């Protein structure tokens, strides 16, 4: 039977015990019969009086609920925003999403030949690719960047907090500014970006935030007290936001890569890198593409939430030599 939307209300506050937001609608059929139904929050901003659809009884642990499935023709273009997306792991993640039909916003503090190359590669997958300037450590810059991203791409379904830097030194030699720089970009940046995209994701009825943490945030690493603290901080951020934002249909997940084949890792003196490799079960570097595939997977797999997934060739199970 065909039902038509008469009136509806988008809920922006979570309802217990369902811990979710959705649309409540009154629909009617041609005999003038009316029913009250629930509509998925993914139709936020797209439902209108008169839209036709059908009702399905959906089983939930809280009881069976009549759910209205609108017949909406328009195809959604999903959008991912990757901070630090110009190069390295960020660029690999951006490409993985483009491969799967996502429009991509690359947010970065640099826009150079490498950025252009990344954007070009993204567009070769027949998706829209945009660049926005963003210094993730500055609230104003993040807001401007997100605003610009929404202006260009229309929405943000996925945020990847990938931008990160290192300023390695032993504690005795570590300068306060090295601590501040790393914490501000890696941790505060993830906080500011999450905060800035929240209203956007609420408005479209959900989303996913993926935080690129590090194995170092779980294990610690000599000479990286700032970096390890920032990456451990991202784990706390992930677990807290996963709880806070779940009612809005937003999942938050952290990925903790081991040493990956990027400029950042290759800057580590070779002797140290080799010594490190000898301690892990599979002695090689993680490929950025492998990390990108995992990020895409956690976005697509809607059961993954609030956890830290190491992608580390077995680093977390390795036995210490020293």
């Amino acid at each position, binding site marked *: 039977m065909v039902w038509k939307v008469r*009136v509806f209300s988008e809920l*922006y506050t979570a*309802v217990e015990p369902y811990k979710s937001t959705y649309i409540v609608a009154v629909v009617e059929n041609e005999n003038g019969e009316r029913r*009250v139904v629930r509509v998925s929050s993914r139709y936020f901003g797209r439902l209108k009086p008169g839209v036709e659809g059908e009702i399905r009884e959906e089983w939930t642990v809280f009881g069976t609920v009549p759910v209205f499935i609108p017949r909406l023709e328009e195809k959604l273009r999903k959008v991912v925003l990757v901070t630090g997306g110009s190069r390295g792991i960020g660029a690999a993640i951006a490409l993985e999403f483009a491969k799967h039909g996502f429009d991509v916003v690359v947010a970065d503090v640099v826009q150079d030949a490498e950025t252009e190359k990344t954007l070009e590669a993204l567009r070769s997958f027949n998706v829209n690719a945009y660049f926005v300037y963003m210094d993730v450590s500055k609230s104003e810059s993040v807001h401007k960047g997100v605003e610009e991203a929404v202006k260009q791409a229309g929405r943000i379904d996925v945020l990847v907090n990938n931008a990160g830097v290192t300023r390695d030194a032993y504690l005795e030699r570590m300068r306060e500014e090295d601590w501040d720089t790393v914490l501000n970009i890696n941790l505060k940046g993830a906080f500011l970006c999450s905060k800035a995209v929240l209203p956007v994701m609420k408005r479209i009825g959900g989303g996913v935030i993926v935080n690129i943490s590090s194995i170092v945030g779980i294990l610690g690493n000599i000479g990286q007290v700032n970096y390890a603290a920032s990456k451990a901080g991202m784990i706390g951020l992930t677990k807290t936001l996963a709880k806070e934002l779940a009612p809005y249909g937003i999942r938050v997940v952290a990925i903790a890569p081991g040493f990956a084949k990027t400029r950042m890792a290759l800057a580590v003196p070779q002797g140290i890198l080799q010594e490190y490799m000898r301690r892990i079960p599979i002695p090689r570097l993680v490929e950025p593409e492998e990390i990108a595939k995992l990020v895409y997977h956690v976005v697509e797999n809607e059961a993954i939430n609030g956890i830290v997934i190491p992608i580390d060739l077995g680093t977390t199970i390795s036995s210490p030599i020293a």
Partner: protein
Amino acid sequence: MKSTAHNQEVAVIGAYSTKYEARSSKEAYEIIGEVASGVLKTVDKGISPEEIDLIIVSNYSDSFGNVLHTAPLVAEHIGNLGATGFRVENACASGGTAVYLAWKLLSSGLSRNALVVGFEKMSSQGFTSKVNEILMRTAGPEEYRVGAPFMALYALIAQEYMQRYGATEEDLALVAVKNHENATRNPLAQLQKKITVEDVLKSPYIAKPLKLFDASPLSDGAVALLLSSTPRRYTDTPVYIRGISLKHDHPSVHKRSDMAALEAARLAAEEAYRMSGLTARDMDLFEVHDAFTIAEIILYEMLGLAARGEGYKLVREGVTSFSGSHPVNPSGGLKAKGHPIGATGVGMVAEVYWQLRGEAGARQVNGAEVGLVENHGGTGGTSVVIILAR
């Protein structure tokens, strides 16, 4: 008149209210005790506890205050365990229902003097989402099943109304602005703070098209009233119940033939006007159930102040403002005075009682002699209308 069974004239002879607050430092049983003892002292010529033979307590949920079995508690507080008492619940109309029942028992001669106590301590729930879950239980079963909180159901009513009659979100905002302005003159009000239309429009959507500032707050508070069938023994200026009615509608919004109406309120008003021989034009003030701004606009129409589909024009034109020809919610209403559910209807009657006795201080409506209370439950499944006069 149809009410031949009701021989006794019933009047309010005393009223006492706590200030409505977001978070009272007192336990529910303490505020119940405060108002129960307090109201006895407000009777002009005095009343002894033994003269009170009926106690009715109004409370929406024991989840708001963590207390049940409150009638003997009240009896103990006033020092008369010989009184007969019980609790009533009719969603947000629990208070109006308690007054209705007291009137019924007094006017029929079954009781002589009634103590009505309404209370709610909503802050005993830590999370707003949990509060919503508790409130949602008043919805019709189908609406409860889809998980439609109060605000979503009022949003459906609002959308139906706005689509049909062309009212705007700004019109709804004007109700909030008016009632906040009124609350600045009421020391008992929870939100004694002026707001602007822009403040309302900028507040976040909770259930589109309704925003945070379209909703009444969550409140703690208690109110007590004394009603008597021999009022002149206790005061020379009683406030009589001249008309009273309690009516129902479908508890589910989607089952109503007109989703943009509050039919129970219309029917209750019609009966109360008939009983009193008065009309909307005769009322000096109205205290109505503006749990959400849209409700006040629709109530203008249900209570006969405006024609169907034209309620929103009254607030645009200032007709219902404090200085307008028909002040509505001079107390600040649920929107700004607050909405401690079980106390709300009782508090509305207390407010009109003070207004008609000229005791309303800065918010006094000059020369008020007749006033109307409308208190409804759920999304309008129950409505109580009470017309009071000196």
